[in-house]
């Protein structure tokens, strides 16, 4: 086979090229020809096709994502904003935190273990690339029905993959979600969030500057795995023969990554790199073009120098390979010896593959001939942008009109019915204890985990001297977002924000993973447009800027899209982790208070879903000002030592919140429901903006005054006491029985 060099391409303008098979549209191919003034060589075509794929270019989402910047609230905390590998947030005392969430949905369906494992590996490298030590992971997951045969294939594999990779990297997993819904059956969602810590001065950026500086590829050798993974897997809808695409899934080696992390941190500490980029989606194509595009604008690469696992790989394959555990650094010649010495100490393969130039071109040669000669910005940052048509689906009105009213869905009313409903929901897959999952994750490693699942947020100590720490939580509710995408996205943010505040931390910044169906469907695109608008508006109102994130489209099987699922991660800071608020009930005699308003809100609720299989009506009301006040109360309550425990009221309502607090703390409670509410509504409504707090009797008045001063309603609903959850006048369940009901579900389903 003759090599398709740039010279050959110029001489053979009419050669038929497989642009369509590589996922490019005809007008996109035409634009590449215009940019180059000739047809692309096959290597150039490979690079453009992966970099212009939906996954890499955000071509359908870009016009909407701009709002996160345009509506960004003023924030002193942002050290690095959107556009880099991850945002960096100032948490004080010279410390900074970087965090970001990403998806690895399609690979995890095709090959659950490796898909999930490399999802963790990819986001960890993004965090590392910023110059930070990765310190924690959270994993929001969505699966098809819990009892579906394919869920029994996918879920255990995903969980083992996350554990297998994350545990082996020495990263504590401190939070996440496991949610089931039929729409995720052929399209599970595997999102992974990583948090890293660094000192202010240690921030690294992905740019190649300084003519003559060396481009070093280091880490694993390049193999044939994951070729075209980006364009083939992430940017196309699964059809009936989905699982046949196995070779496109990357294979991870956590040991190599662990060594790479330590090697990089040592290199960073010695201040030996000018710019750094990890190799993830689109591999070398992405790393070289992004580094060059963000820097001086020119780079010369000798592709023959790339160390290969498989010597038969073609140059196109080398450029597209998504082999894991690789990094690309820009190093001044005077530092190269020291750089290579550190790599050698860690037995990490490192190779100088090129240098920074002032040509304004990314030139790649192979066997002495030029196979790529392109303006790097056109590959990396000036891809196509689509204004996809979007329209509110006609059926949306009917969906919203079909609310779960008392007339529409039968509600439990007798004490026995209420008790049965409670036990049923406690054991339902979405609300049941996730111990079967989380016990497969190491939450202790690094020795800084202060709170971890099932607590509301993960809390990590950053500075052992001062006690400075961070809290992180992820939340998302696809059913709420389906009913009202604008409000649903805001509710996701509100819940994550609340969960961070519940631990005593002050919410600072946001990352998001926007999981949707096909952007080519105007109805899905409307969901996306509404959700991004809602999220951007809410971030502005709550004063928490978006620092980065990820969009995952084409999450559908055939014509059926998943529930629109924006997953929102919120990061907060806590000045002294010793002040964190736990969630379990503890000391008998302490007062249990419900903060916030409870309304008859069951649209999209767990009760409607689990008991009636119903989805209709409107999601709970969003009141962002209330959320902000609630967070102030929780942070002040933690700081002033008023709170013995606190827990967010969300899925399953007050009843579920109390059950979780009782099971977590191993103590019971006597509960008196507010008299002005129907007991069913009081127990199971999912009204937002609510928390349950436990305060010592001596602090009850002080806490209530704090709420009243902010016009936030607070009502005493009980007292910590005994060994049962005793809802006075209605029913009583022993905590041991609740624990059994909550913990038996997952082992029964998954072994």
């Amino acid at each position, binding site marked *: 086979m003759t090599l398709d060099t740039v010279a050959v391409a110029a001489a053979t303008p009419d050669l038929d090229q497989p642009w369509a098979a590589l996922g490019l549209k005809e007008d996109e191919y035409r634009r590449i020809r215009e940019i180059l003034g000739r047809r692309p060589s096959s290597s150039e075509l490979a690079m453009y096709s992966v970099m212009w794929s939906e996954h890499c270019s955000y071509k359908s989402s870009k016009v909407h994502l701009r709002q996160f910047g345009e509506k960004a609230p003023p924030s002193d905390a942002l050290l690095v904003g959107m556009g880099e590998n991850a945002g960096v947030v100032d948490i004080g005392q010279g410390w900074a935190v970087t965090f970001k969430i990403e998806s690895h949905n399609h690979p995890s369906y095709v090959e659950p273990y490796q898909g999930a494992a490399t999802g963790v590996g990819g986001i960890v490298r993004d965090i590392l690339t910023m110059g930070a030590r990765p310190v924690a992971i959270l994993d929001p997951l969505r699966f098809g029905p819990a009892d579906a045969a394919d869920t029994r294939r996918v879920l255990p594999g995903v969980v083992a993959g996350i554990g297998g990779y994350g*545990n082996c990297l020495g990263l504590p997993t401190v939070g996440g979600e496991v949610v089931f819904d039929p729409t995720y059956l052929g399209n599970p969602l595997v999102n992974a969030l990583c948090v890293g810590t660094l000192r202010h001065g240690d921030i690294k950026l992905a740019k190649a500057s300084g003519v003559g500086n060396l481009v070093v590829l280091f880490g694993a050798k390049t193999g044939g795995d994951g070729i075209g993974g980006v364009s083939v897997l992430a940017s196309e809808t699964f059809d009936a023969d989905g699982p046949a695409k196995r070779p496109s899934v990357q294979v991870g080696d*956590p040991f190599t990554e662990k060594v790479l992390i330590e090697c990089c941190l040592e290199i960073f500490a010695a201040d030996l790199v000018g710019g750094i980029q990890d190799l993830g989606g689109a591999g070398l194509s992405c790393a070289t073009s992004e580094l060059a595009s963000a820097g001086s604008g020119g780079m010369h690469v000798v592709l023959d120098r790339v160390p290969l696992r498989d010597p038969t790989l073609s140059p196109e394959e080398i450029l597209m390979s998504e082999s894991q555990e690789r990094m690309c650094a820009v190093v001044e010649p005077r530092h190269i010896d020291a750089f290579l010495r550190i790599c050698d100490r860690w037995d990490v393969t490192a190779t100088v593959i090129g240098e920074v130039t002032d040509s304004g071109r990314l030139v790649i040669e192979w066997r002495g001939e030029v196979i790529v000669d392109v303006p790097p910005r056109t590959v990396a940052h000036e891809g196509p942008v689509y204004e996809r048509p979007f329209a509110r689906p006609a059926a949306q009105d009917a969906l919203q009109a079909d609310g779960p009213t008392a007339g529409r869905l039968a509600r439990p009313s007798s004490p026995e019915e209420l008790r049965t409903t409670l036990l049923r929901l406690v054991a339902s897959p979405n609300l049941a204890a996730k111990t079967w999952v989380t*016990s*497969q*994750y190491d939450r202790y490693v*690094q*020795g800084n985990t202060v709170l971890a699942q099932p607590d509301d947020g993960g809390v990590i100590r950053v500075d052992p001297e001062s006690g400075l720490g961070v809290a992180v939580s992820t939340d998302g509710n696809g059913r709420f977002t389906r009913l009202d995408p604008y409000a649903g996205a805001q509710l996701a943010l509100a819940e994550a924000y609340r969960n961070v505040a519940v631990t005593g931390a002050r919410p600072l910044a946001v990352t998001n993973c926007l999981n949707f169906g096909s952007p080519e469907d105007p109805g899905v695109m409307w969901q996306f447009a509404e959700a991004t608008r809602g999220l951007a508006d809410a971030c502005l109102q709550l004063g928490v800027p978006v620092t980065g994130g990820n969009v995952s489209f084409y999450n559908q099987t055939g014509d059926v899209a998943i529930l629109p699922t924006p997953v929102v991660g919120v990061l907060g800071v806590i000045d002294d982790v*010793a002040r964190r608020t736990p969630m379990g009930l503890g000391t008998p005699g302490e007062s249990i208070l419900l903060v916030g308003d409870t309304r008859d809100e069951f649209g999209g609720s767990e009760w409607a879903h689990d008991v009636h299989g119903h989805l209709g009506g409107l999601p709970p009301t969003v009141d962002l000002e209330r959320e902000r006040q609630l967070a102030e109360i929780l942070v002040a309550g933690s700081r002033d030592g008023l709170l013995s425990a606190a827990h967010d009221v969300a899925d399953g309502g007050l009843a579920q919140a109390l059950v979780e607090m009782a099971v977590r703390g191993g103590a019971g409670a006597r509960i008196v429901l507010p008299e002005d509410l129907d007991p069913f509504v009081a127990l199971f409504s999912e009204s937002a903006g609510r928390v349950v707090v436990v305060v010592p009797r001596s602090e009850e008045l002080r806490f209530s005054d704090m709420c009243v001063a902010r016009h936030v309603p607070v009502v005493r609903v009980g007292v910590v006491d005994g060994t049962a959850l005793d809802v006075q006048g209605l029913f009583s369940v022993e905590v041991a029985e609740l624990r059994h009901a909550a913990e038996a579900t997952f082992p029964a389903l998954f072994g």
Partner: protein
Amino acid sequence: MAPTVGVVTFPGSLDDRDAARAVRLAGGQVVPLWHKDTHLMGVDAVVLPGGFSYGDYLRCGAIARFSPIMSAVVGAAREGMPVLGICNGFQILCESHLLPGALTRNDSLHFVCRDQALRIESTATAWTSAYVPGQEVVVPLKNGEGGYVADERTLDELEAEGRVVVRYLGANPNGSRRAIAGIANAAGNVVGLMPHPEHAVESLTGPTTDGLGFFTSVLERLVHA
């Protein structure tokens, strides 16, 4: 001067910084040791931390056994230096034949991370003298291959000689024979265990501070040596 404890870092070690923190909290001085080192820098005791040394390829601990530092550790251990192997460190001690038996895949086939109740069966070792015989403690357990196995004669011998140092209480978390969580060599200076005492040294980050005794035991002994 406080006694010095070397903490070995292999490529893939994960709990090395945690072991070092535990030694410091117990009042000891830490000397980091690197797997390529050929001598022990004059330390008074050694901790082999948890993790996945060399990726745990082949068999857990099987490659670490051949690292340069292990020749030095094995030599010193045979001459009586206190050596503690935690989790992967326990696996390395078995592979190095400083301790009998082996660790196999958990019988659940899953990695397990939990707060584990344990009984200290022997306080006659360098690493458990600070406990009371029969003392019940809670320490994190986190491993995928923690099932302790040995032939019946070895197990009987370990029991008879009081070398079962720590035993699991309640449901056996990984299928270990006779619920063995940790053992010692005949001299009592070398101890290996699957649970992680270094993660139970601060009430803020651990379920208890029960694990601190392993480190205070050895430091106490070294001070009076």
